């Protein structure tokens, strides 16, 4: 069937902010869908609240809405745009749920919008665990025993019957939120309560445990003519019980005979057909009992997923792109295979390599969270590696993780080995290696971990071989063993430590022996047909297929795995670097190892190297490609840390010189530079010892802010109010400070307004892209505070100072490309510079969307030698947004129960949203809504404010009173409000007696909380309040500035109907 001609305009709903369980992979799928549909001549209307995505680039759709993904707003957009169809399957769980909500609300019907991809019934059948079970039983597929319960009693009764442990899974939640394993009745009571609460429909499936079974996933695709194909099978290294998102996974399946595999394939197709996904991709999960071979189906996702992104990168088959074409009625046999050109997309990819995905966790950022892996996803990001064998791919993947730990330097506690193997944690693999090295047998390791012996044997082989190498030295090692080591995936770095020589020495020896990395192609067909797409990975085999061209070329170093502080924003910049280079007729070469991203789509750059971002791997690529330039300033800290060594190896870095980058990161030299430019910095110093630190702090005066140097996202950064805090910090911090660099100590500026500035510089002229005013005060990490463009309350004088400082700094650092500066304006109006990052920042995409100028692209043009003066299309001096754009962060606290959701100088947010409005209030309330903490229209406000801010507090209280809010306050605060003639009720603090503020919150009597920190003494109280608020999903504000913003937001909400505006309209001005 040719594509449908009865529909013209198609709406796509994105997945919103990056959260655990829903990251860049949906930017990848959404972007592919937009491109594919437009290639077929359809108009696309895109909605996504996340400005950091490529899919929200105005070029990718006719109309792009960065608006809240709620029924009200989507309805507004539908009414305005009148799309013919809604593609529900490329926006993750969020897009799927939103589509379903629109259908349920009768809006799609009302405006005659057809849901394509998966229809309402199919979605319900797949997502509602009970309907799903029924459907599977109908077609004779085995499922775990289970019961859907809506109350505690029923749940307890059933689990007593099937016996513990039991699995709890709330309906309609993402990444298993609120799920858990109850090992006994007591745990059951606790977990089931939470689960019932978290499920939007208050339903929980209580299920037979199949912990320790082998876990598999199948990526399936189906077209209107009912042609079905499997794109990829995935086997989990970690057995059932660890969420696939938290499991090391391997493609394709390794330990299944053909009969077993084909049975799983048959089951997947039967499932797809029964659920009734008419077109597109789905993901089906299975568990197999290794002893009996019993195979049960766990779930199916009727949409593209994290795994389908992985499968696309693993096979070279672009699932989302094809799924979009299938959704408009095209057939698999009508679509060509991009890579082979000659053959159709209707086939099952065959691969001649092994792919390993390893998750990246960041429990260290959430003190109080237990670093244990279970059925609910906890990882923040992931890496993928392609290798000639499992061993090769596994070690490559481990290297890609950038743990900061040197290979082989981990310390293990022998007494913990057994428990570390039994209970899955991020450390399990390290402990496995240790245990096997200590002589634990594969059988024993299997008994403890239930990991398939085949995988364990692979580890053992590598470890044994390492032993053999250990007996050698760099001089004595045979070429054969050296080659074997590289084939096994040992890095030069690892070998150098083994032999106590430098990495360079190992590299040299390798080259003398002619042992070099060669590159193979990912071609979907195991070389059966010629590949026309340079999608490459390194191996230590004989033949190289890289075939570098003679064109002028520039290499872009990506940002590696998502982590807090370094995520999709940097991938956005890298993609734009590629687009810009292509526009300038340079060949673009992308290097990255994050399978979720758009940058690792073989369509994004001319050539893609799916490789770890380590010195060794990057140098190997450089030697093969001989690029004219390498871009290091777009991938966050990862490539920056490589810039000096790369330069030392004679690699041509384009843009700002690595020396300047280093200067900006180097406290001393940077400090001196700022002095010369007389740009004030918060007084500060450095220390490498506890004594030193205490001294520095003494001189500065408390509170001080301490942190290790060379970190992104304020990692391990704390505000110390006392010598005691410094001492305890120094003890841990030393462990953090990765490159054994010193600890930095600054005077902490209290009640200061923080400002983020992004600027472009060509070495001579400077163009300020945006001056962003933070809503939260300095002290809350720039990535964690809401901010607004243009600045709202900053005086012209300060703005002028900021512009001057920015220009001075940019020129002094000889910035060519992008620069980000953070300032703090102290209470007395003095402007301090907090830090200068001569690189693309987290805010680049937001600024670009707000101003309508592709800042990252412009930066690349500058790096390639163009001058701002030669760009008449650009305004002089500064870019101005046409409307008000507020960016708000999104936090993962709901994934880490027990963690205090307090904000500080260490970044904790995983994602961001943008709200666009005529006024600050409108923009702010939209942003809050998108971020998942909608402001109340009315109800009661609870306030507890420190002494020095009480007057200000009263002013804010008045605004709320005027809007008819009931007022509550702790004694002091309430009295001040009363004194000002406001009717405010006094509430006990937690330690004053009952009923206290927490009771009030739990009773749902409060709809908004403003509670500024009152120092160490009140800390416990405040924590209790934050916890209660989080549980009740009540916005809890810790800063007056944010409180004022909330007042404006609520006012705006109350007296104006919701308005939507596309970026295209916004940029028209």
């Amino acid at each position, binding site marked *: 069937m040719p594509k449908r001609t009865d529909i013209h305009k198609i709406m796509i709903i994105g997945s919103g902010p990056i959260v655990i369980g829903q990251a860049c992979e949906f930017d990848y799928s959404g972007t592919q869908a937009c491109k594919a549909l437009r290639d077929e001549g359809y108009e696309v209307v895109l909605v996504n609240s996340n400005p950091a995505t490529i899919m929200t680039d105005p070029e990718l759709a006719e109309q792009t809405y960065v608006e809240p993904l709620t029924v009200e707003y989507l309805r507004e957009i539908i009414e305005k745009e009148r799309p013919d169809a809604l593609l529900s399957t490329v926006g993750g769980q969020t897009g799927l749920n939103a589509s379903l909500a629109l259908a349920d609300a009768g809006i799609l019907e009302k405006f005659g919008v057809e849901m394509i991809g998966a229809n309402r019934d199919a979605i319900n059948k797949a997502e509602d665990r009970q309907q799903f079970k029924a459907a599977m039983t109908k077609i004779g597929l085995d499922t775990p025993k289970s019961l859907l319960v809506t109350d505690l009693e029923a749940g307890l009764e059933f689990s007593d019957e099937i016996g513990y442990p039991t699995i709890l899974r709330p309906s309609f939640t993402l990444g298993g939120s609120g799920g858990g394993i109850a090992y006994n009745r007591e745990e059951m009571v606790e977990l089931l309560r939470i689960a019932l609460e978290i499920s939007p429909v208050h339903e929980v499936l209580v299920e037979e445990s199949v912990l320790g079974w082998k876990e598999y996933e199948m990526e399936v695709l189906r077209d209107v*003519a009912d042609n079905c194909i499997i794109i990829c*099978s995935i086997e989990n290294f970690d057995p059932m019980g660890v969420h696939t998102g938290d499991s090391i996974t391997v493609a394709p*399946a390794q330990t299944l005979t053909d009969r077993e595999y084909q049975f799983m394939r048959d089951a997947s197709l039967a499932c797809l057909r029964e659920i009734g996904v008419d077109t597109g991709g789905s993901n089906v999960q299975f568990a197999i009992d290794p002893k009996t*071979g019993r195979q049960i189906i766990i779930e199916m996702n009727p949409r593209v997923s994290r795994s389908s992104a992985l499968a696309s990168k693993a096979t070279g088959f672009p699932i989302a792109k094809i799924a979009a074409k299938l959704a408009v009625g095209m057939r698999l046999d009508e679509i060509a295979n991009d890579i082979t050109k000659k053959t159709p997309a209707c086939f099952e990819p*065959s*691969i*001649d390599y092994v792919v390993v995905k390893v998750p990246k966790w960041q429990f260290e950022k959430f003190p109080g969270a237990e670093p244990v892996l279970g059925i609910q996803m906890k990882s923040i990001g992931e890496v993928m590696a392609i290798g000639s064998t499992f061993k090769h791919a596994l070690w490559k993947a481990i290297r890609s993780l950038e743990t900061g730990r040197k290979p082989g330097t981990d310390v293990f506690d022998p007494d913990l080995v057994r428990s570390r193997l039994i209970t899955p944690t991020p450390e399990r693999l390290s402990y496995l290696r240790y245990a096997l090295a200590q002589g634990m047998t594969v059988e024993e390791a299997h008994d403890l971990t239930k990991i398939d012996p*085949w995988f364990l*044997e692979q580890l053992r082989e590598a470890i044994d071989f390492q032993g053999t190498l250990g007996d050698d030295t760099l001089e004595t090692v045979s070429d054969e063993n050296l080659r074997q080591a590289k084939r096994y995936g040992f890095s030069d770095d690892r070998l150098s430590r083994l032999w106590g020589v430098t990495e360079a020495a190992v590299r040299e020896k390798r080259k003398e022996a002619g042992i070099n990395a060669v590159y193979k192609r990912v071609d979907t067909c195991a*070389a059966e047909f010629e590949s026309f797409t340079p999608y490459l990975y390194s191996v230590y085999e004989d033949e190289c297929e890289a075939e570098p061209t003679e064109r002028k070329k520039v290499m872009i170093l990506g940002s590696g795995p998502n982590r807090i502080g370094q995520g999709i924003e940097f991938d956005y910049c890298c993609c734009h670097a590629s687009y810009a280079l292509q526009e300038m007729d340079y060949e673009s070469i992308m290097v990255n190892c994050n399978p979720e991203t758009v940058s690792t789509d073989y369509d994004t750059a001319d050539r893609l190297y799916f490789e770890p971002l380590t010195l060794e791997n990057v140098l190997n690529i450089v030697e093969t490609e001989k690029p004219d330039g390498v871009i290091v300033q777009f991938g966050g800290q990862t490539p920056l840390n490589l810039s000096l060594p790369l330069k030392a190896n004679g690699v041509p870095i384009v843009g700002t010189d690595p020396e300047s980058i280093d200067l900006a990161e180097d406290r001393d030299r940077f400090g001196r530079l700022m002095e010369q430019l007389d740009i004030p910095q918060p007084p500060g110093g450095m220390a490498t010892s506890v004594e030193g630190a205490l001294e520095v702090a003494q001189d500065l005066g408390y509170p001080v802010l301490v942190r290790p140097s060379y970190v992104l996202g304020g990692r391990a950064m704390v505000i110390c109010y006392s010598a005691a805090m410094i001492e305890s910090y120094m003890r841990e911090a030393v462990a953090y400070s990765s490159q054994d660099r010193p600890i930095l100590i600054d005077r902490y500026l209290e009640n200061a307004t923080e400002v983020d500035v992004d600027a472009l510089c060509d070495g001579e002229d400077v163009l300020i892209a945006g001056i962003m005013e933070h809503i939260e005060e300095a002290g809350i990490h720039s990535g964690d505070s809401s901010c607004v463009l243009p600045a709202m309350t900053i005086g012209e004088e300060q703005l002028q100072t900021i512009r001057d400082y920015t220009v001075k700094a940019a020129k002094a650092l000889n910035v060519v490309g992008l620069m980000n500066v953070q300032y703090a304006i102290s209470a007395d109006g003095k402007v301090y510079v907090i830090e200068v990052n001569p690189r693309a920042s987290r805010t680049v995409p937001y600024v670009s969307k707000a101003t309508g100028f592709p800042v990252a692209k412009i930066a690349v043009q500058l790096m390639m030698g163009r001058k701002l003066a030669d760009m008449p299309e650009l305004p002089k001096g500064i870019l101005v947004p046409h409307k008000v754009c507020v960016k708000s962060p999104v936090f993962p606290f709901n994934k880490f129960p027990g963690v205090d959701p307090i904000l500080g100088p260490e970044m904790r947010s995983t994602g961001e949203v943008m709200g666009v409005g005529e006024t600050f209030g409108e923009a702010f309330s939209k942003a809050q809504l998108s971020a998942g903490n909608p402001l109340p229209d009315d109800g009661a406000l609870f306030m507890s404010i420190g002494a020095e801010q009480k007057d200000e507090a009263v002013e804010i209280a008045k605004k709320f009173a005027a809007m008819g809010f009931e007022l509550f306050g702790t004694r002091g605060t309430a009295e001040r409000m009363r004194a000002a003639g406001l009717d405010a009720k006094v509430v006990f603090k937690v330690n004053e007696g009952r009923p206290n503020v927490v009771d009030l919150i739990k009773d749902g009597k409060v709809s908004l909380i403003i509670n500024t920190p009152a120092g160490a003494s009140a800390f416990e109280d405040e924590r209790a309040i934050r916890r209660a608020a989080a549980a009740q999903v009540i916005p809890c504000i810790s800063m007056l500035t944010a409180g004022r913003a909330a007042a404006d937001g609520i006012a705006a909400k109350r007296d104006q109907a919701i308005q939507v505006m596309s970026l295209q309209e916004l940029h028209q001005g």
Partner: protein
Amino acid sequence: MSFAALLALEDGRVFRGRGVGTPAERAGEVVFNTGLTGYQEIFSDPSYTGQIVVLTYPQIGNYGVNDEDRESLKPCLEGLVVREFSPIASNRRSQQPADEYLSEAGVPIIDGIDTRALVRHLREHGAMRGVISSLDLDPDSLIQKARTIPNMAGRDLASAVSTKERYEWTDPVPASSPSEHITTAEEKFHVVAYDFGIKHNILRQLRGIGARTTVVPAGTSAADVLSLKPDGVFVSNGPGDPEPLQAQAKNIQGVIGRVPVFGICLGHQVLALASGAKTFKLKFGHHGCNHPVRNELTGKVEITSQNHGFAVDPDSLPSAEIELTHINLNDQTLEGFRSRKDPMFCVQYHPEAAPGPHDSAYLFQEFRELMEGQR
């Protein structure tokens, strides 16, 4: 324990690797298979007689071998080339390590090879003769040996591998898991199968549609076959070049029109010869589990299991009597045809799978329906 081994090709290209299992030397036509699963079925498929098989999937031997997954009594290939052979077998169904299984049959295994480079070489220059050895490590002498073995073109290997005695088959397809439900119809038909190197899963599938099968030697005459009173006749897959099988084709001509006839792979080629058509050698053949084939009658695409080095020239088929039914979407080659007047149909690929997808199992049902129709 591992030892040096070489793979030498007739065009002079030599690959160095490690030997696995028992040292040995064997020669054959080097072909590659792109399947991700099912190495045991490949080892034991008689159609690989006379061939050295390169597996593109790098990790082989992971799940061992077992009795249920055998496609014939013993390994049939001449040699195996892989990237990495597993030191252990990990699967509850495994009964023996895969290398042991091959070594017992004297089949050499060479691993540590850049199989992708080798496959690209074969793709460019076509399937060619080669030798695997860990006994003779002199490249030149091996290259010479490779050049001395007979070419695949023109070779009748089918008669050689065919059973000497007729035998009965009644085993059904086994379930691979207690959760798998495989339906086996009650025994209702008698099928006579011409054995050119028949795969056991074809016989199991025939049992699945309710047929007891009598397997007869390749040379059996039409009269002898008909005297067995079959409800249907099956013409099997097998190794080698179909061209020399003119006599066998004649025999089969004698049964077409008398009883329903179904052919697979070499059987498809022989039925083509019987219809007066020509066959030709493909550059490197089709060996894998992912080839898309469109059923021209329904328009639906099947993902098929394939293993053939020769193909039927569709233009040489008499279009008056013959209707083309299946086309390969990768290279447009002929994958199946049927007679317009007689109950006869056949496919070039492997609906019995093993290894491979089950998309085409319906063809056995169609055979059953034909037999029912003739009742």
